[in-house]
């Protein structure tokens, strides 16, 4: 049996088992808290795995392995940023948000701020983040499945995108948050097993000597000493600073990450789940460093670039070599297994993004803003299911239309939007009494607008290296807008607050402090 056939077989095994879980989750979903927040009954370690499953994308598994294999040090630095970002979540956000929110970020903010403007603003930025991230993931999924299965042409890409879209709609519309959570948990376990096995095999092949592994990676990458020096991938220093700032501050504002904290019974569980997630993600990243070194050492630069210039095939090819090499059953099996894990990885991430977007649409925009809280609980759930269909369909169509473009920059943009539009207002709501509704709304729209606006005139979108208008010069020099848009978001929220008065927001500050720090008045877990 060929590697592609094996890959398909493993895909189908994964898909079948997740569909069983979806059906099981549907039977356990009895009310809106079950559908949107898994009844707040997910335990600490379960949520830790689900957080890792939600956060670690296919781009991390395949893209960063390639980045390390081809450029060495810059890949390590990139991973450290993703890990430190989770500490911001743990220390500043997770527990307070668990105690304050019900189903969405806007729930927490509207405890202090005027409900309709703040829900509208947060929903706008949340939906922008979700759609951009979905596009990036789905276009990536199409390209990836073509690579992994050795297919050619736009039809194969479109087929892969439609398959991913259909499954993600099923998971979310039928299984709700319970189904999504367990898909993410299974994916995290598969991902950890795969990377753990590969890490051990790489180390074994290098005789358990990190020194000799690094030396051969330096030689085979063709970079020698430069392999462990900065600047292999990130050529522009200011670009590196801007992207790093967006990464380290953005995670704590990503709505699909924050949404996981509404599924645990209390703040202690939120804390322990973040601790689990940091342990899992950190260990995974260290393993990924070893795998990247292994890919450089055992495959060599030429083979990696030949399979895919961006290095996305480094991990699967390495798996094939470690399994016994080309044309052996072990090699085919390993390559197929890694392809299936990558597929599972993508599915779990897009499911998390979709349920976040659908919840925001149903809970914030439809029930909160349009119908002013007159919608029944079951009405909210059915609105979310319809929104899932619409969001899924729209992102499939957009991803198919954009599948020939390189949309990797959208991931950096998403982190920049989260850091510029969400993090300032989130922190100020919890830590600054003087925040007003006007300031918060201004901060969100300024952060969102400047992040998106600057990317549109950046070298990634226009100019010689961009997607369109190749003859003009980009108006903004950096690929990532974070360095400008994050300070702008903070300044707009602070200045807007200082220029206005909001006695209700002022009065609600201390009660929110009490609720978020002690858990008094927080949402309880649903008894089953």
């Amino acid at each position, binding site marked *: 049996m060929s590697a592609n056939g094996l890959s398909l077989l493993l895909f189908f095994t994964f898909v079948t088992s997740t569909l069983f879980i979806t059906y099981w989750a549907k039977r356990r979903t009895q009310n809106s808290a079950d559908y949107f927040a898994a009844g707040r009954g997910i335990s600490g370690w379960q949520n830790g795995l689900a957080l890792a499953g939600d956060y670690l994308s296919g781009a991390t598994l395949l893209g960063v392995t390639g980045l390390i294999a081809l450029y060495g*040090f*810059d890949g390590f630095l990139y991973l450290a940023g993703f890990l430190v970002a989770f500490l911001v979540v743990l220390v500043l956000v997770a527990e307070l948000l668990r105690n304050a929110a019900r189903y969405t970020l806007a729930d927490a903010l509207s405890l202090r701020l005027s*409900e309709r403007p703040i829900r509208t603003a947060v929903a706008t930025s949340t939906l922008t983040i979700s759609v951009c991230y979905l596009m990036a993931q789905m276009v990536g999924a199409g390209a990836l499945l073509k690579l992994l299965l050795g297919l050619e042409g736009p039809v194969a890409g479109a087929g892969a995108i439609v398959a991913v879209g259909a499954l993600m709609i099923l998971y979310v519309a039928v299984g709700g948050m319970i189904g999504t959570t367990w898909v993410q948990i299974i994916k995290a376990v598969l991902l950890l097993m795969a990377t753990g096995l590969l890490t051990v095999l790489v180390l074994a092949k290098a005789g358990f000597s990190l020194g000799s592994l690094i030396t051969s990676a330096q030689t085979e990458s063709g970079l020698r000493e430069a392999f*462990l020096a*900065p*600047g292999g991938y990130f050529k522009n220093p200011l670009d590196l600073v801007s992207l790093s700032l967006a990464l380290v*501050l953005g995670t704590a504002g990503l709505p699909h990450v924050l949404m996981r904290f509404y599924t645990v019974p209390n703040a202690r569980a939120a804390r322990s789940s973040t601790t689990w997630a940091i342990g899992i993600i950190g260990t995974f990243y260290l393993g990924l460093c070893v795998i990247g070194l292994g890919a450089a050492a055992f495959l060599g630069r030429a083979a990696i670039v030949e399979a895919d210039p961006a290095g996305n095939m480094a991990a699967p090819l390495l798996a094939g070599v470690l399994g016994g090499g080309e044309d052996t059953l072990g090699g085919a099996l390993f390559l197929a297994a890694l392809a299936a894990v990558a597929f599972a990885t993508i599915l779990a991430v897009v499911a998390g993004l979709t349920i976040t977007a659908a919840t925001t649409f149903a809970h914030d925009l439809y029930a909160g803003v349009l119908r002013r809280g007159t919608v029944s609980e079951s009405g909210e759930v059915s609105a979310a299911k319809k929104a899932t269909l619409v969001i899924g369909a729209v992102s499939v169509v957009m991803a198919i239309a954009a599948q020939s473009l390189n949309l990797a920059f959208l991931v950096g943009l998403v982190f920049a939007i989260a850091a510029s539009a969400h993090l300032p207002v989130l922190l100020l709501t919890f830590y600054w009494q003087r925040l007003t509704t006007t300031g918060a709304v201004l901060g969100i729209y300024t952060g969102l607008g400047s992040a998106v606006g600057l990317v549109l005139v950046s070298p990634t979108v226009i100019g010689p290296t961009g997607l369109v208008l190749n003859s003009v010069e980009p108006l903004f020099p950096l690929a990532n807008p974070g360095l400008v848009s994050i300070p702008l978001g903070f300044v707009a929220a602070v200045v807007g607050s200082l220029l206005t008065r909001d006695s209700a927001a002022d009065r609600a500050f201390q009660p929110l402090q009490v609720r978020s720090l002690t*858990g*008094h008045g927080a949402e309880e877990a649903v008894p089953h």
Partner: protein
Amino acid sequence: MRGESPQGTAQADTGAGSPNGREGPPSTGSTQAPKRAREPSDAFSRLQRAHRGLVWPLSILFVGTYLLTVWLAAYRAEWMAGPGAGPLSVGCIVVLMNFALSFAATLLYCAYANRRLDPLAAEARLFIAEGGEPITAAVSTGGEPR
């Protein structure tokens, strides 16, 4: 472990964080706090101080360390490329220190939260459950509720 906090939204709304904001202390009648003769507990304000005293310095430490690492990689690349320990460059050591610091900060935060913050939070909740007002003189009055 929030079992000791009172159930029911009526209590919760008067106690904390109602979306409608609050008007004045609960002695105006919305809770049935019978007598305010109890000594005001300062558990909540101690909790607030203990929380802020840890989370901000810790956040500045690890975000600062990472941004310093990035700055060194961007603007002191030749130094970062220099030999560190064994086959590793200085840069690799600095990045590994970021990993180590992340794990250490996680453990430190959890230990502090479990030992110091959780008991204070429990004490403050108990005080509120017995009808106490956790915030002393911090709530301004007047104005339209949302």
